Structures are given as C-alpha cells and as structure tokens.
C-alpha cells in the first residue's frame, strides 16, 4: 500500500491525486463499479419482484397475453446481446494488451449490436402500439391480440413488459453513449484509455450487466410455460 | 377552556383490558430502562466529572459478561413482549364463529355501515354490548382505516379486497370513530360515533329499522318526517327558487302573494302543509304538492313541532335519550376562516353544546335522510 518510489507512468495511466498508487486507484474504480452494479441489481430487482408476484397471481391470463410476443425476435435479440458481450470482453482484453485496433473493432461491433437490438425492439414496440397493447385508456381496443386474456390482467402484463424492457432499453441507450465516448477516446489515442485499461474495463462491466438483465428478461417474458 | 387531562381512552371492549395490560407493562419497562440509563448517565457524569477526586484506576474498556448480560436480558424481555403482543394480535385477528357481521364501506369522505337486516347508517355504528361483532370492510376508492380507540381496534379498509376486524363491546356508550389512513381533503372529518347499546336495546333498534323504541320527541318525529317526505329538497337553509326557507319561521310575519302580511302560527303552518295553494308565499307559485289526504293530523302536528325549532342556533333537536357529551372547548376563531361547514358548525355551537359533533352528522337518522342532510349542511 505504500507508494512505490519510482513510478514512471509508462505502463499505466495518470495517477489521480487522491490515490497513493496505481493499484489503489485501479482497485477503487473496480470496486466502485461493482458497487454501482449492486444498486442496479436492486433497481431492476424490485421490478422482477413485482413481475413475479403478478405472474403468480394471474398465470393463465399472462400466459395468454404473452403469446403476442414474438419469440423469434426475442431470441434474435438475445443472441445479438450475447455477441455484444463477447466483443466487449475482447475489447477489454485488447485494452489490457494495448491493441488499439482490436479495441476499436470490438467496441464498434458492440455498438452495432446495441443498435440492432434497439431496432428490433422498436419493431416489437410499434407492433404493440398498433394493436393497442400499451397501458392506457385505449388498451385492448383490438381484442384479438389479447388472445383471450382478461383485459385488466393483460394490461398489468403489458405495463410491466414496457416498464422492464423500457428501462432495459434505456440502459442500452446509455450504454451506446458511453461506448461511443470510449470509442472516441480510443480513436483519438487519448492517454486516459491508451495507457489505462480501467475505463474500458468499467464500461465492459456495465455492458455485461445490461446483457445479464436481458438474459433474465427474455425467458421470463417470452418463454412462459403454459400453466396447468 | 376547561382543564381536562384525560390520560387514557375509555375501555369499552374485551380487548381493552388485554391491550392495556400489555401497554402498561411496556410503559413500566420504558420507565425502568429510561431510569436506569438516565440514572447511570447522571450519576457517572457527576461522580466522574472532570477533575473530581474519584478512583479512575484500572478502567474497563471491554467486559464480555457485561455485554452478554445487557444483550441477553433485553433480548429475553423483548421476546416476551413479542410473544405477548403476537398472541394478542392473533386473538384480535381471528373472530369467533358466531360473531355478528356488519358491513362497512369506506369512501371519500364518509363511512357507510350496513347491518345484515338492511338497516343502514352513515358515520355511525350501532353495536350490541356483550356480543362479538365482526366488521367486513371494503373501500370504494382509496385506502382508509377504521379506528375505534375505545375498543382498541384499527384496520385498513382497502379497495379491491375485504378486510375484517372484530370486537366485543363491553360498555354501553358513545365512542369515537375515526378514519386513520390519510385519504384526502376531509380525512380528519371522516369520523363519527360508535354507539354500544345493551343487547336488548340493540335488538329493538335493529328490528325497528334503526330507530330506538324509546319514544321520540315530537320534534324528532317531525324531523324524521320532514326528511322522509323530502321537504328539505325544496325548503333549505336559504330561500331558493324551489321554495322559501322555513328556518326560524314560527311566529314571524310573512308576505303572501296577494300582498297580505300573515302571522306564521300553528294554523298557518298546518294550512301550508295540507293546502299550500290556498295561501302562497310572495314570489312562489303552485310548485309545492298538496299533502291533504296524505298525512294524518298526528303527522302534521309533528311537522309543525319540528318547524318551530328548525334553524335555531344551538343544537336544536331535543332528544329524549341521554347524551354522553364530552367536554367541549371552543377554539380561537377568525370569522374569515374558510372552514368546512362541519367545522363552522362546531365553532358556532357556543359554550355548552350537548356534544361536539356538528349537527349535520348527528342522530339516528334513517337512510333517506342522508342525502338531504348533506344538502342542508351545504356540502
């Protein structure tokens, strides 16, 4: 923990003034990001709890309502995000090895995947809007798309569907912005990322979390088993 | 302002004794531990005050036995209280099978009570003494709560589901009923009275459609008729296009449509009820129906008796029953105060009203009276 006498800053980024040495700095940022991710787990967790409660209360109606969701599009999105998680992991590793070209390529693919995810989501959402499946006074105006579910309970389902996937999409958008900023720093060869892999790692951690949320959302929403 | 320091609520249900035993035990424990800590702090502060010649050698910084004692003893006491409280709660939560059911609907901002045989009341709950009563409750809008301090019972009243509470009233009397979950503007006015009656009286009351069999005064009967016939639909507190106000009408001089001034005595009032078109008040036509042939003379006498006291400032309707009035104070008043009508009525009751409840919420009125009553009170 004591300061190292000779620190030439060759092999790491700038040491911020509050830290004594680079290990302390790096550790702090990683612990900080994990702590933030814990808060995100609690944030989404509350929604998952609400979902679980209502689904257990209205199993059949939710099953019927969920049939409106397109499993194929959902599965496609899942694969897209998994690929993006892989590429962001490669980007982090490349950052550690200071391989700028690979970093740029992989961050680029990650951003592209994120956009594809959002575009597919936009298609899904617009279909729901067309069929009046969004919560509000016009919900259920096209009854066939309720698939026989009780309109009130279906509205609860869709409320949570939009709430949870919407919040997730918001996190994707934030991720795109952050990834783009990271891309920009690598593009302009800034020391802050070229010499210090931590910023890339932190963004990678965030992106993995976003992917993980979707891994839970997809089966919960799209892959409901039929209740007996 | 009378100096009135009540220190405990009335004990009027079988729960009250059980509850108060636990409550006072907790009070004693609180007093005990506060005294121990307080005494310790004060004693040590004085004895070991800076510069005082006390023995400070071999000071202690940790002592496992002491820590364990003051961990385990409070824990045991706490668990004991927990068990006692939980048992009491379970008792309060599980009604006896033979409990009489009464339905309660809460809505902004009143309680609607319905007895099984159809008798209804608002903001009042009549219950028999000595028999378990179970309330089945639901809200029409937001979450309310039904609270009877004297019975030590309280329960949320939730929209979309039934909640229950039960009690066994032990003392006849009138007790506060409050709404105790914030529900909007008139949350603090959404209350009334629980009337516990000896079982026989209650049975009579309920068999009589929610009226007591103790004879009503003429004025009370007249009031009942006045509202059941919907006289107040047209004859409110103030003159309207539908009909003139009858407040304080007795023995005043009234202008007729032909210009005459007439004294509003008993005969006049009787004529005006039975054959109103014979003598129309100035400014009015033949809107009022004639009651000749529909009312007995006894009915008319009752109506006239009521009209003689209608609109007088103090709590006007004399009752024949006893009233358990609580000590009343009048607060500081500002004549520009934008108060609710009930609050205004409360403030206007002067030094010795019979009880604190504003007139619009009084009485054992049958259901037909409710809407009219609210209109009369200007709500």
């Amino acid at each position: 923990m004591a300061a190292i006498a000779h620190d030439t800053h060759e092999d790491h980024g700038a040491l911020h003034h509050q830290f004594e040495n680079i290990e302390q700095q790096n550790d702090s940022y990683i612990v900080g990001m994990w702590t933030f991710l814990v808060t995100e787990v609690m944030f989404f967790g509350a929604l998952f709890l609400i979902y679980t409660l209502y689904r257990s209360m209205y199993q059949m109606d939710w099953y019927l309502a969920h049939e409106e969701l397109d499993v194929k599009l959902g599965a496609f999105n899942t694969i897209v995000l998994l690929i993006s998680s892989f590429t962001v992991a490669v980007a982090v590793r490349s950052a550690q090895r200071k391989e700028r070209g690979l970093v740029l390529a992989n961050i680029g693919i990650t951003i592209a995947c994120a956009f594809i995810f959002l575009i597919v989501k936009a298609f899904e959402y617009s279909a729901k809007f067309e069929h009046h499946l969004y919560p509000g006074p016009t919900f259920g105006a096209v009854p066939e798309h309720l698939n026989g579910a009780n309109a009130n309970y279906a509205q609860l389902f869709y409320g949570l569907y939009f709430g949870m996937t919407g919040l997730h999409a918001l996190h994707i958008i934030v991720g795109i912005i952050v990834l783009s900023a990271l891309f920009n720093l690598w593009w302009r060869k800034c020391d802050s990322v070229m010499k210090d892999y931590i910023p890339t790692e932190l963004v990678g951690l965030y992106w993995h979390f976003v992917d993980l949320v979707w891994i839970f959302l997809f089966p919960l929403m799209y892959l409901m088993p039929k209740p007996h | 302002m009378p100096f009135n320091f009540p220190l405990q609520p009335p004990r009027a249900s079988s729960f009250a004794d059980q509850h108060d035993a636990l409550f006072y035990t907790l009070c004693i424990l609180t007093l005990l531990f506060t005294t121990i800590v307080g005494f310790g702090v004060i004693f040590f502060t004085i004895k070991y005050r800076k510069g005082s010649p006390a023995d400070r050698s071999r000071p202690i910084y940790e002592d496992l036995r002491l820590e364990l004692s003051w961990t385990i003893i409070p824990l045991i006491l706490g668990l004991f209280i927990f068990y006692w409280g939980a048992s009491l709660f379970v008792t309060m939560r599980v009604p006896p099978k033979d409990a009489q059911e009464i339905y309660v609907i809460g809505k902004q901002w009143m309680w609607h009570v319905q007895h099984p045989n159809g008798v209804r009341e608002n903001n009042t709950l009549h219950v028999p003494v000595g028999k378990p009563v179970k309330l089945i409750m639901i809200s029409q809008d937001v979450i309310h709560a039904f609270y009877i301090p004297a019975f030590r019972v309280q329960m949320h009243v939730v929209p979309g589901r039934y909640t229950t509470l039960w009690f066994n009233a032990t003392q006849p009397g009138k007790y506060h009923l409050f709404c105790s979950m914030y529900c909007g503007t008139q949350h603090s006015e959404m209350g009334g009275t629980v009337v516990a009656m000896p079982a026989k009286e209650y049975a009579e009351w309920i068999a009589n459609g929610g009226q007591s069999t103790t004879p009503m005064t003429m004025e009370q009967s007249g009031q009942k008729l006045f509202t059941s016939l919907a006289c107040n639909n047209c004859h409110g507190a103030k003159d309207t296009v539908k009909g003139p106000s009858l407040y304080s009408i007795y023995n005043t001089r009234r202008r007729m449509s032909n210009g005459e001034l007439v004294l509003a005595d008993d005969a006049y009032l009787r004529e005006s009820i039975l054959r109103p078109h014979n003598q129309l008040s100035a400014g009015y036509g033949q809107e009022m129906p004639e009651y000749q042939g529909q009312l007995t003379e006894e009915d008319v006498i009752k109506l006239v008796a009521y009209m003689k006291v209608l609109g007088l400032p103090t709590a006007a309707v004399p009752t024949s029953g006893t009233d358990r009035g609580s000590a009343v104070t009048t607060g500081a008043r500002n004549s520009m105060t934008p108060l609710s009508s009930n609050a205004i009525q409360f403030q206007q009751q002067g030094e010795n009203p019979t009880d604190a409840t504003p007139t619009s919420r009084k009485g054992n009125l049958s259901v037909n009276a409710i809407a009219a009553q609210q209109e009369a009170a200007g709500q």
Partner: protein
Amino acid sequence: MSAIPVDPTSAGNGVISQPAPAASETNYINEFGGLKSWLLTGDHKRIAILYLISVTFFFFLGSVAAAMIRWELTAPAGVVLESDTYNKVFSSHGVIMVFTFLVVAIPSVFGNFFLPIMIGARDMAFPRLNLLSWYLYMAGGILILAGMINGGVDGGWTFYTPYSSMYSNSNVTLVLTGVFIIGFSSITTGINFIVTTHKMRAPGMTWFRLPLFVWAHYATAVVIILGTPVVAITLLLVVFERAFKLPIFNPELGGDPVLFQHLFWFYSHPAVYIMILPAFGIISELIANFARKRVFGYHFIAFSTLAIAGLGFLVWGHHMFISSQSMYQGIVFSLISFLVAVPSAIKVFNWTATLYKANIRLQSPMLYALGFIGLFTVGGLTGLFLGSMGTDVHLTATYFVVAHFHYVMVGGTMTAFLGGLHYWWPKMTGRLYAEGLAKANAIIVFLGFNLTFFPQFIVGWLGMPRRYHYYYLAPEYQVYNIMSTLGSGFLGIGFLLPAFYLSKSLMNGRKASANPWGAHGLEWEIPSPPPSTNFLQIPIVLDEVYDFDPVTEYEQDRAQQAIEHAHEHPGMMDSHDETASKLEEGGH
C-alpha cells in the same frame, strides 16, 4: 473553565495556550477563490460545506411547515388554514425533512468532511462523483420546491397508493421525480463511502482502529446502496401510473395497492437506519472525546452497527401490521423487530458504561450527546410499543407514532447533528463559537423538545390519529396539542440560536487551533481549517483509536486547574501550584 480552550500541541498535553495566532496558512477555504472554484470543486471538504448550506436551507423550510402545523393544531377546528392546505403542509414537512434533511445531513456534511481525514486519506475515492451527488441533491431539492410552489403535494411523505397514483390532484409527479433524483444523490454518496473506506485507509489503519464514526458511515453506505434503488423504482412507478396510466397498483385492474407499501417500506425502514446510524457514529466520537476515555465495548458497537444495518432490511412489515398482510407475515416482522432493537440497546449501555471512571467535560457537544442518550432511549423504547403487534393495532397511525419517530429523529438524529456541528465547527471553520450560549442552547433544545413531543404520546394513546387537520370530533385532545405547540416554540428557538451564534463566530469568533478540545483522531492533528490535501504526508497509524488514559487525563486536569488557580491568584502558591508549575516548565 471551559471557556479557555485547552490547546495542546499534541493530544494529551493539558497546557493552556493563548489563542493561536492568526493563521495565514492556506486552507481548503482560502486556497482557491471564486464561486466557480466552489461550484466545480472536487474537495470533499468544500462539498461538505456546500451540503451544509443546502441542508440548513431545507431544514428551515421544513421547520416553517412544522410551525404551521403546530399553530393550526391549537384549535380543534383549525385556525387559519383550509384542509387542503394543511394536508399539503404536513406532507411537505415530511418530504422535506425525510428526503432533503434526515437522510442527507450527517453523512453528506460530516461524513463527506471527515471520513477521508479520519482514515488518513487525501480525499474520497471519487471526487467528481461526490460533486455530482451534491448537484443531484440540488436538482432534486429544486424539483421538490417547484412542487411546493406549484401548489404543493399531499398524501403524506409515504405516498400510499391508490391515493397518490390515482386520486390526488396535487403535484405528486413533480415531487416524486425530485425525490427520485435525490435518491441517486444518496446512492453516489454511498458508493463513495464504501470504496473509500475499503481502499483508502492509511497504512496501519486497520478496521478495528477506525473511529466508530467511520464504521457507522460504512454501514450506512451499505444500507443506502441496497435500499435506495428499490424506493427509487417504486416512486417512479407511481409517477408512471399517474403520468402514463401504467397500471401497477390499481386495484380496479387487478393491481395490488398494498404491494406499494411493501416496496416503499423495504427502503423506508432501512432509511431510518440511514438516518440514525451516522448519528450513532457522532455520539461515539463525542462520548469518547469528552469523557476522555475509549468507548466501552468498541467491538460490540462496531458489530452492532453492522447488525442493525443487516437486520434493518428484514423488518419493514412492522409498518403494515393492519394493512391486510397476513398475520403470519406480521409475526415474522414483529419478531425480527425485537431482535433489531437489541443492538441499539447495546450501544446505549456501552456509551453509558464509557462514562464510568471517565473524566467528563460538560462542554456543549457533550451536552448534546448526553441529551441524545436520554431522548434516543425513550424513542427506541417507545418503538417497542409499535413493534408489538397487539399494541400496534391501537397505536399505529396515531400521534403515538409521530411522537416515537420524532424522539428518534429529532431527539436522536437532529441532536447528534447539532452535537457534531458544535464539535467540528472549530475544525471546519477555524473559529470558536460562544460556548456559554451553546450550552444554554443544548438545554433549550432538550427541554423544548420534550414539551413538544411528550404530550403527543399521550394524545396518540388516547386515539388522536395523525395527519388530522381537524379534531373537533374529539376536542378533548386540545390541551395536549396546545402543550405541544408551546414546546415547539422553545424548540424553534433552540434551532434558530445556533444559526446566529455560529454565523457570528465566522465573523468575529476567536481563531481555533488544531485541537481546541484536546480530542483524539486524525482530524485533530491537522490545522483548523484543514489544508486542501488534508495531510502533508499520509500518516502511518500506530496508535489505537480513542487512546486516552483516564488516570493521566485526571492528573492533567488537576494540573490545569492549578495553573488557572495560580493565574487567577498570582502570588498564592499551594501544593497543586508547585506540581503545576513543574509541568509547565516541563513543557509537555
């Protein structure tokens, strides 16, 4: 005696010195000038001062609301307000006091200022995140204010559905959005505390050498990061239900309004531990340093802090015994509530035991600390009435609850805040305040507080519900309400006076030395006010914390008394004076 600052050059000396000469050295206040340097600072000390100004502002707003409540309640049918207005006033009082003051004040003022210094660090782990937390606080606070100005909000600070989500026509959305943003201010502060405490302790500063203040803030930070996101999403759902008709709590659609209560209280019960744990931390510091003795049972206090933080997440249902939750749920919550009471009791006993064989100085911060012990004991014990299900049925939603939580929140947290403010004022500002006035103020606060809130126990037990504008249905409650209002006048004076004498000290108070109280702790080994980087050199910690020896303290006190005696009566010598003058010559 206490008017003369004891100012050893290092702790434990006891030699009286003259007030330190005007320090022209640079410190965190004067080093960088201009508004921009304050508004864009990363210095945890400056951020703490920014917070101090903001929380004081919001506290006074909340107090004005309190004054209006108390005034209105002197008469059964009100005095000057309409019910709609009164309902908004009490809701504002709650929202402002809970979300903009109690949750924030001690951690963001004293935690921010002293946590890094106490562990021997130069700053928090994430200074810019720290500054962001203040801006989030201000943004949220401004939105809440906007809600007030735009017509106010009602529903109480608890915002139960479906009233808040479907029926209220007040500024629920605006205010809840503000609360949501303040939640993130809290979360960022929590992240900073956790990382800083874990990663930035100076060499030799092991966990069990940490001041208990640090333990308290660490535990608080854990509670913050686990609880706050849940209430954030819950309040957001209420906003969405209002704004976009997103149905979650709507019973007409099959939603569950009681679900809101579970989610809300899952945070809001731990939130009260967010409010009290930092206060416990301050009290440990005050007791140790004014009793001149290491806190009794340091390990027990440290672990009991963690126990409270952990168990505190498992008791939320004790706010819901009569909400229609099942009685089995209630039984579990009640049981754990009695368990969580025990660690708090342990602390109170430990603090009391610290006073045994101590060397107690009754300077103003200590008066607040002792007042805390009394008031918190009553507040905590009255919590048992509410944790016990049978009595809770009668007492919940009455003024008994109001009295209970004001005893712990005002008698507890606020008293500790004032104690800490007085204790650390010389360190933060470099000025000494009028100690005599401060002592009197501590007594005014204690007495005014009790007169305000003790009658509320009685009137609640009688049955007076909370959040009641009118009580003409039960005018017998008036006498207690009048007593309470009278007390609140005194309490108000007790809160206003420090604003005056503390501000005055900034203008012409005597300059403080590095350690005017002769206290132990890294913060007392750096100048007052501290330099921007806290330490010239990161210290290497070899001593245990609260390293007092009562016997030595006693001897030094006697020596000091002798010196004062000699100064007051020059020429008169007695045996004490001989010893004293030897000590003085010795120079240590």
